[in-house]
């Protein structure tokens, strides 16, 4: 390469550098950040949350925006990586967002907590690990908010359903030891079961990238379990369901959110996708979903998955917080978020506890999968979750 060319290249890089720092918000807009995994392993969810949030923003803007200002969503890729997320968050703060829609990945929430508390721009996410919103000192993390049941709440719902409703007491557990989501759904479940007089007859693990669970399933089968608790991602859920059938282990599976559609269609085998219980954030039949459902279907030509509604509700929460605090700055959102109560969202009635920054008394819709079909069993919330002030 000639020296001249090199100089030009250098100039081009410089220009690009400067351009990176320019780009401030224009006056009549309220900027909301959206941090999702767009290119990493959980990009399926990231895209779903983003689409849901976009639908909410479009709806709000069509109705005149907030205080006459239009909402604008700025999406940042986290690559499902803590380091990227911190850079992304700081970048969003620099460009002047007033709140950030967080990803459904707890690890990122845990890393963002201290930084967001300092920056004072709140993050509304669906990180189910309770440590994201409640610090070790038991006090809520000022800028972190959860908008679906925490892993403790969720797994207690499942545990309560297992033992109190289905009456199953000898439980085998299989979970991904290297995955925070799975681990955080396993511990409270086991504790609840033990406290309620149940027994964990076998606890088996696997790690990221494992594809063959027959060995673990065989051990659980031999331990005499009368059900299998399996709180994991959808791909592994499909594998376990199929392999359960292959080794002839036909007890019920108690599963996590990931057994929600499109799970059954992925299994593709009604014989295998059978006798599975799960709790979803909502029921497809519930009327409050219809509007979003139709908009999504018209826009993307497919049925929305549950993460779309999580994204939608996160924007609703931010809007509500602005309304309650009477302003559109990040301080207002911070002030408004903990006092949100009885907000009709798509995933339920949202009431945020000022003590935990988590929703209170959120019920889940129970389902059973029978021969590849989802059968709705109604909303369920265990006795101990009911808060006196929620509906």
């Amino acid at each position, binding site marked *: 390469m000639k020296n001249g060319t090199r100089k030009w290249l250098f100039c081009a890089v410089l220009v690009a550098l400067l351009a*990176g720092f320019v780009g401030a918000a224009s006056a009549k807009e309220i900027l909301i950040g959206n941090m999702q995994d767009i290119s990493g392993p959980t990009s399926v969810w990231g895209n779903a949350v983003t689409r849901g949030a976009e639908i909410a923003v479009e709806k709000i803007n069509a109705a005149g925006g907030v205080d006459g200002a239009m909402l604008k969503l700025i999406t*940042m890729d986290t690559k499902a990586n803590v380091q990227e997320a911190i850079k992304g968050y*700081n970048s969003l703060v620099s460009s002047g967002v007033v709140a950030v829609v967080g990803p459904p990945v707890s690890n990122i929430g845990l890393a963002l907590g201290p930084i967001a508390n300092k920056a004072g721009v709140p993050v509304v996410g669906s990180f189910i690990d309770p440590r994201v919103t409640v610090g070790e000192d038991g006090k809520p993390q000022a800028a972190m908010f959860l908008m679906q049941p925490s892993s403790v709440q969720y797994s207690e719902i499942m545990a309560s359903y297992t033992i109190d409703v289905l009456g199953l007491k000898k439980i085998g557990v299989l979970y991904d030891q290297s995955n925070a989501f799975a681990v955080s759904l396993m511990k409270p479940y086991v504790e609840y079961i033990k406290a309620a007089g149940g027994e964990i007859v076998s606890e088996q693990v696997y790690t990221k990238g494992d594809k063959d669970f027959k060995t673990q399933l065989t051990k659980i089968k031999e331990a005499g379990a009368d059900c299998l608790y399996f709180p994991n991602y959808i791909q592994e859920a499909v594998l376990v369901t199929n392999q359960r059938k292959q080794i002839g282990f036909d007890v019920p599976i108690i599963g996590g959110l990931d057994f929600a559609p499109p799970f059954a269609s992925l299994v593709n085998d009604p014989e295998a996708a059978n006798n599975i219980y799960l709790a979803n954030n909502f029921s497809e039949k519930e009327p409050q979903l219809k509007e979003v459902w139709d908009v999504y279907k018209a826009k993307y030509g497919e049925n929305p998955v549950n993460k779309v509604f999580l994204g939608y509700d996160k924007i609703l929460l931010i809007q509500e917080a602005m309304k309650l605090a009477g302003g559109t700055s990040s301080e207002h959102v911070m002030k408004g978020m903990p006092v949100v109560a009885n907000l009709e969202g798509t995933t339920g009635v949202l009431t945020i506890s000022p003590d935990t920054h988590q929703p209170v008394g959120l019920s889940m819709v129970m389902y059973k999968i029978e021969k590849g079909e989802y059968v709705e069993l109604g909303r369920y919330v265990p006795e101990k979750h009911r808060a006196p002030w929620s509906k």
Partner: protein
Amino acid sequence: MDYFVSTVIFTGIALIGVLGVYLITGLTGLFSLGQAAFMAIGGYVSAVLIRNYNVPVVPAVALAIVAAMLAALLVGLPTVRLRRDYISLVTLGFGEAIVALLNNSANITGGAMGISGIPQLTTLPVVLVSVVVCLALVILYKNSKYGRQCLALRSDELAAKSMGIDVYRLKLITFLFAGALTGYSGVLFGFYTTYLEPAAFNWIISAEWTIIVFVGGVNSLTGTVLATILLTWLPEFLRFASEWRVAIYCVIVLLIVNYRTAGIMGERELSPKTLRRLLGRTKEAPR
């Protein structure tokens, strides 16, 4: 401003880790696909000592670096005598084993849910000073008997042995030094993000670091530094490209590797001599 600072800090942390890879791959010609594991060791040891055992910062950091070096010794001792191709395999396996170990020791490391609440001690000045010190150490190493012998062994192991170089010992020393640097970058990482999880230290990170070294130039330290800065900032400028970001990054790396095989800097270093040559235009750069 926070955004700028955090990107600078991450660049600095990455640079110290990449310097470790530079020593192993750029200087000595070995491939480590498990370098991120040393980062994990550094980060975890310091975090656990401080959080669980209330060890003061300085000894905790020192112990973390020692732990990373011990791990490097453990991997290095049996592998330096193996054929080069096997080192990448053994380090890969080592990386996986460390992640498994972290996941399995949940009562100490928090398992997959990670350690949170680590004090945020890494600030911009800390990172800048660290970078300068580490860079100075590596520059000294490269320009001493160690660096020369490493380069000799990289280009021709048999001839290097015939010149009286104890290649196994040399590989081991380099491995230990690289382990210490990478371990230290892990310490800085943990003290900045305040949160550590095993999943963040997989072989892809190690591979990305190796890519950075090659993009920078075969054995040019200047190139390695430039490439680290360029390739950690590049994704930031590509944010507008949204989901295309990683793809564009890959294409740029492919173009550099294929069309400028020697890397950005080739074998050249930025020194007073080359600067004069560049500015004075006395000589066209050799192709």
